């Protein structure tokens, strides 16, 4: 029964029928993800204090993030202390692969969620000896849409775009590219077989994000990996001196 007048209507959709209840409009202007943003700022504070460079790797599933990390860790672990947070909906397969490289890794299984959020990262940090780390990689859940909206407190969001995905990906999914600080075009060893040019990829990335730096590489053949390593070395050094520009 309708609470207001006792008429027989029960559906709340018609709560406002003829009774003309006064409603009030209020401006809220509240960011939907304000809670995540606040936690991300806190994470950023922790990374500032501990001078850890944090890189959030985002891509479609299978673009080569874990392979890239395995090779990067093997190449750089002699000169810096590296940690990895692995985000996957299920399984700890990727964490096992990283563990085999000998660095500290923590797996987060997001189950239903298709992205990591700042809250998950905050808890994951308890697993690491932060004061000993120089570089923390976060491998986000393979997904080219959802992770774009969630700030984790990272210094750099790096999008990995692999050659077999095709050069039109940035145009189809501009959101995550627009929010990135570096784009790695991966699996360039496949350019020849697929009869593609790496410049087609760069052009489309720059179309949706005009000034973003782009590198191309192949974790398989090693081509271009040195450029990525130099980028990381520079940023780790800059973080120690507090020289990195805050993102955005």
């Amino acid at each position, binding site marked *: 029964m309708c609470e207001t007048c006792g008429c027989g209507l029960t*559906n*709340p*959709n018609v*709560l*406002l029928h003829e009774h003309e*209840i*006064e*409603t*009030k*409009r*209020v*401006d*809220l*202007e*509240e*960011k*939907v*993800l*304000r*809670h*995540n943003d606040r936690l991300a700022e806190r994470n950023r504070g922790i990374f500032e204090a501990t001078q850890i460079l944090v890189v959030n790797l985002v891509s479609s599933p299978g673009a080569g993030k874990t392979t890239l990390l395995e090779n990067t860790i093997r190449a750089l672990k002699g000169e810096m202390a590296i940690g990895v947070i692995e985000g996957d909906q299920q399984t700890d397969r990727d964490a096992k692969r990283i563990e085999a490289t000998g660095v500290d890794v923590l797996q987060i299984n997001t189950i*239903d*969620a*298709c*992205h990591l959020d700042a809250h998950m990262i905050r808890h994951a940090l308890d697993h690491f000896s932060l004061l000993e780390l120089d570089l923390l990689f976060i491998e986000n859940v393979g997904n080219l*849409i*959802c992770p*774009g*909206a969630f700030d984790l407190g990272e210094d750099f969001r790096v999008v990995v775009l692999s050659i077999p995905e095709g050069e039109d990906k940035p*145009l189809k999914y*501009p*959101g*995550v590219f*627009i*929010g990135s600080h570096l784009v790695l075009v991966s699996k360039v060893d496949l350019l020849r077989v697929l009869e593609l040019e790496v410049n087609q990829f760069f052009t489309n990335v*720059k*179309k*949706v994000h*005009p*000034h973003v730096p782009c590198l191309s590489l192949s974790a398989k053949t090693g081509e271009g990996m040195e450029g990525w390593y130099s980028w990381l070395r520079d940023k780790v050094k800059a973080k120690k001196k507090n020289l990195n520009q805050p993102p955005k």
Partner: protein
Amino acid sequence: MHELGIMQNIVDTVQDYARKNNVSKVVKVMLEVGQVSGVVPESLEFCFEVCTKQTMLEGALLEIERIVAVGKCKTCEEGFDLLTHSFSCPRCGGTDWEMISGRELIIKELEVI
């Protein structure tokens, strides 16, 4: 598909506001969703009913305003719809621009009793 989580965030925020401001019922929620925010309005609508069950938002209307992705040309200052014009300025052909809007995800307004 992260719209369920996003919608849960929205419902929590609105309930939080309602509790603090002695609101007994929310009858309308107005959102602004940017074209490149990574959120699909149709999915949000789909999740709204589920997430508002047995809350003071139950039965409320959801209104979503889609915010166009707009860039401002750095060459000629023209503002233009990025997606329609494939990211290049329709006036001068410039491909260097600054993003003005399109990434919003905002609870804009409520109508309450």
